[in-house]
């Protein structure tokens, strides 16, 4: 039986990093957008663009 477990471990870690990084990116982008929405909602606030 070939000893190639390192390839499986690297594949699982890589998949976890890609999926995890995307989840984090969604959370971070959503918070940034919410901050901009909150700034726009303040009375007298100038529009962002």
């Amino acid at each position: 039986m070939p000893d190639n477990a390192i390839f499986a471990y690297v594949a699982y870690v890589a998949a976890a990093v890609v999926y995890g990084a995307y989840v984090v990116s969604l959370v971070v982008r959503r918070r940034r957008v919410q901050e901009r929405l909150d700034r726009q909602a303040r009375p007298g606030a100038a529009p962002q663009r």
Partner: protein
Amino acid sequence: MDASPRAPSRPGFDWFLTASVVAVVAVFVRAIFFMPVEARQGAAQKIFYIHVPSAFIGLYVAFGIVAIAGALYLWLRDDRLDRIAASAAEVGVIYMTVVLITGPLWGKPVWGTWWTWDARLTLTLFIWFVFVGYLILRGAVEDPGTRARYSAVLGVLGALLVPFIHLSVYLFRTLHPMPIILKPGQPSLPSNMLATFLMAVVALTMLFFALLRARYRLAVAMDAIGDNDASDATPVSTLRPEPVR
């Protein structure tokens, strides 16, 4: 049809996304630590449990949604369909990135090479480029109607590669293994491996729809502030200097 977004709800704790992540982690742990090592391929065979479900969901589910939502957008002109297509494309690219990383990690120990330019692998790389291009296109076109129309056409055309990718192992000589699940007749897997594979399909499908929902909500919020796209990129037109008067 102008489907203006309602005021987006504030981001809160996403139970569906959390449950999906827990399910994926549980399947990963089961696959790595509790599944038997295949006699001929060794432990590298376990890459199958992430590579195949990610490819299945990325190609058939994600890019299928892009094509259907895009085609419906061209017919109905409903902005919600454009948001669904854009969200599915972004999540699909993430899934196909995992496919393109894990495939060579399986190929090196089993085939003896990281990559070969056969039809299945090359077409998979092409469809990844097409949908990365789709995302770049969305960031480059500022007018929402034009952006939605162009990207709907590209999404429909890009998804036409999916049946060719599925049939490529039958149509061309290839190193890539023949299907062992999506084929006529019984799946050729032992029952415990098949059960783990199906768990991985369920967990990664849950994660896909959780990510799709989160990305769609982000798109609604971005539309509410009138931003071009959900990336943080500054539109090129805003970087142009003001003309000197």
